């Protein structure tokens, strides 16, 4: 009897443990097709947004908070939770969420492949049925997120890559600040003159890798007509060892040999490299226009301490005359219960009031042609806007597999600066990496083929 009681007790306990481990019963998700799950009036809706952007457009957090408050005031049944991700966690967090089909309703994405990889895996949905074409036509750089006739995301703000220089240091070195370097030879001559007065000509930081990808996007384009040539090489229709694709390595090596860079470039991070410019330790930067307002707000530095120029030319391709621009943006997840509400919030971000507030808060241009451009009074920003609206060109990093960017561009630039590989070897590294990518990703190769058409 005693034994029976003990056995029954154990069995009951075991059953309780199993019960507690069982998944909770949840209501079945709405069966309506995406875009038709419009909530009934008054239904409580909670949207979750995972985003990034304060890091490159300081002031974005304030704008986001104001925007959410304004939207919630207009829609009392909607609450919005925003989660600012770090640079390193942006992609891994979303990858995990996508694997679990649970996470944000709206997700921030960089353009091109960074967005479309998630469309290919089914993590985000097309927005064509959620945002009217008339509205969509005002958004800038939509092409980055288009695939197979569908629009998988929209832009939020523009992020471009000017070359920034310090006119005062130029003057000290005997360079004409009104006439910055235009050719590669000019740039190397400027390096010599700046070195002569003990100023680092160009600063950068490679330790965290990102800057290597930027240099690829800024420099490798100059011998090309269109970004599609890089997509073609990715799927095997050209080789990264072809002179057209490999020359940028030699040009970068020339800058290294001319003493243009800070000697500690491999042991400092990207941000530390940018900081050297604001600290007056370097005269030039391959930078980002989203940083400019932040630079100007640095004590002891100001708008008069900098000027912008196009990246000096070494190539004759059409892309050499372009200003690298991408639209950082948004996508709606496939597991969101309220895609139409998500889209409504995205459109709210693009209302004129919010667009103007965005520029006022960040000094960065929204990816929308409806901003009141009379707000742009700063000459440097006027120049950037002119480039954005006349000669904008694709950011190449968005149109190659991320594996090529990481394993070839980012690591390759580090190896160039450490002296371990020469330009020929680095071109071969790129070709080996893309060959490996094609072997490991037959599915993605097919997607790239469709995308490149």
């Amino acid at each position, binding site marked *: 009897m005693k*034994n*029976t009681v*003990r*056995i029954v007790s*154990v*069995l009951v*306990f*075991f059953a309780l*443990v*199993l019960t507690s*481990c069982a998944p909770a019963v949840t209501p079945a998700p709405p069966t309506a097709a995406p875009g038709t799950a419009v909530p009934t009036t008054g239904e409580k809706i909670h949207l979750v947004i995972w985003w990034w952007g304060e890091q490159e457009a300081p002031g974005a957090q304030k704008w986001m908070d104001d925007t959410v408050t304004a939207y919630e005031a207009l829609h009392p049944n909607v609450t919005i939770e925003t989660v600012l991700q770090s640079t390193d966690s942006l*992609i*891994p967090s979303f*990858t*995990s969420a996508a*694997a679990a089909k649970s996470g944000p309703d709206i997700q921030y994405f960089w353009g091109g492949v960074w967005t479309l*990889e998630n469309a*290919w*895996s*089914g993590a985000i949905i097309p927005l064509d049925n959620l945002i009217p074409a008339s509205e969509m036509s005002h958004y800038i750089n939509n092409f980055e997120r288009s695939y197979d006739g569908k629009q998988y995301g929209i832009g939020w703000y523009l992020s471009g890559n000017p070359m920034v220089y310090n006119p005062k240091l130029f003057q000290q070195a005997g360079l004409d600040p009104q006439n910055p370097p235009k050719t590669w030879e000019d740039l190397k001559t400027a390096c010599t003159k700046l070195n002569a007065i003990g100023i680092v000509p160009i600063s950068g930081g*490679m*330790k*965290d*890798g990102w800057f290597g990808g930027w240099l690829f996007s800024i420099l490798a384009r100059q011998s090309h007509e269109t970004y599609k040539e890089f997509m073609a090489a990715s799927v095997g229709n050209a080789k990264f060892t072809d002179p057209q694709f490999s020359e940028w390595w030699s040009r970068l090596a020339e800058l290294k040999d001319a003493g243009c860079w800070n*000697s*500690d*470039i*491999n*042991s*400092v991070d990207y941000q530390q490299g940018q900081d050297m410019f604001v600290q007056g330790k370097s005269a030039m930067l391959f930078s980002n226009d989203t940083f400019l307002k932040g630079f100007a707000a640095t004590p002891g530095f100001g708008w008069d301490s900098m000027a912008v120029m196009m990246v000096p030319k070494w190539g004759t391709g059409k892309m050499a005359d372009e200003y690298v621009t991408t639209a950082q943006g948004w996508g709606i997840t496939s597991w969101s219960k309220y895609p139409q509400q998500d889209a409504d919030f995205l459109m709210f971000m693009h209302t004129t009031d919010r667009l103007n507030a965005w520029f006022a808060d960040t000094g960065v241009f929204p990816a929308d042609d409806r901003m009141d451009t009379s707000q742009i009074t700063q000459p440097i920003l006027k120049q950037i806007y002119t480039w954005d609206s006349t000669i904008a060109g694709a950011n190449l990093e968005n149109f190659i*597999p*991320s*594996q090529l960017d*990481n*394993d070839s561009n*980012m*690591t*390759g630039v*580090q*190896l160039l*600066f*450490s002296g*371990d*590989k020469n330009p020929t070897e680095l071109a071969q590294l790129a070709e080996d990496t893309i060959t*490996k990518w094609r*072997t*490991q*990703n*037959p*599915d*993605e190769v097919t997607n790239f083929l469709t995308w490149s058409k």
Partner: protein
Amino acid sequence: MRANKIEPFLFIAPALAVLLLVFGYPIYRLVVLSLQTTTQGKQAFVGLSNYQIIFQDDVFTLAVRHNATLLICVPIMVIAALFLAVLLFERIRGWQFYRTTLFLPYLLPITVVGLVFSYIFQLSGVLNDILNGLGLKFLALDWLGSTKLALPTLMFVIIWKEMGFGVVLFLARLMSVEEELYDAAKIDGANWWQLQWNITIPQLSTVIEFFTVISIVTMLSWVFNYVYVMTGGGPGHATMVTELYIYLMAFQYNHMSLAAAVSVLLLLVTGIFIFLELYLRDRSSVMEALG
């Protein structure tokens, strides 16, 4: 009688169920995932081809080589920790202060340690500033920016951080060694080295084994944070390790199946060492029981 046979299993069943749920199922899923690939958005069985792919990847083989190189840290840590523990046991002046100082690095978060050492070891960092100030410019090297120095620099930081655990472990065991053993040996004329070789090391053998195996497992599967914070696997792939390779495959390149295959291999290798530790512990207790 029959009930008595079943009863023990029923008592451990809840714990077993939890173990299976928490460890067994994820491992099962990991193995299954490592045998699949995504085709047209669907998972398809591909046998061992993911394993074949990763063995053909030179970045993976490089990562494995680096993990193997990191194993050099293990004997250094064991010997240094043993030496320091003996010094502390002999109560050198200020031993209590040294004991805390030596254990402190082990308590610090790896991220903090990594960030601090990143600044110290930059080409224009604190260490090189000091070396330059001392007129030792030839020693002021690019510790983290050079492909030849980055891994040894990383190893130095790992040793500095992880050794404290060994010191405390060895010291705790030394405190329980019967002093009569040392006294008798001293009366017999044993010198310092003989004392350590014939008494200290045999008495500490179980904890030395434990610390060695734990350190091996650390070097194989617990160095991600150091690498991620200090070098990101670079320059080039000079500090790429298996864990970082898994992370990149899974979260940067969206190759979950390849990442799963490497994870299975890593699990197998570390599993071997964990079982080795269990075996050694088991053997020691048997030997102790036999007197």
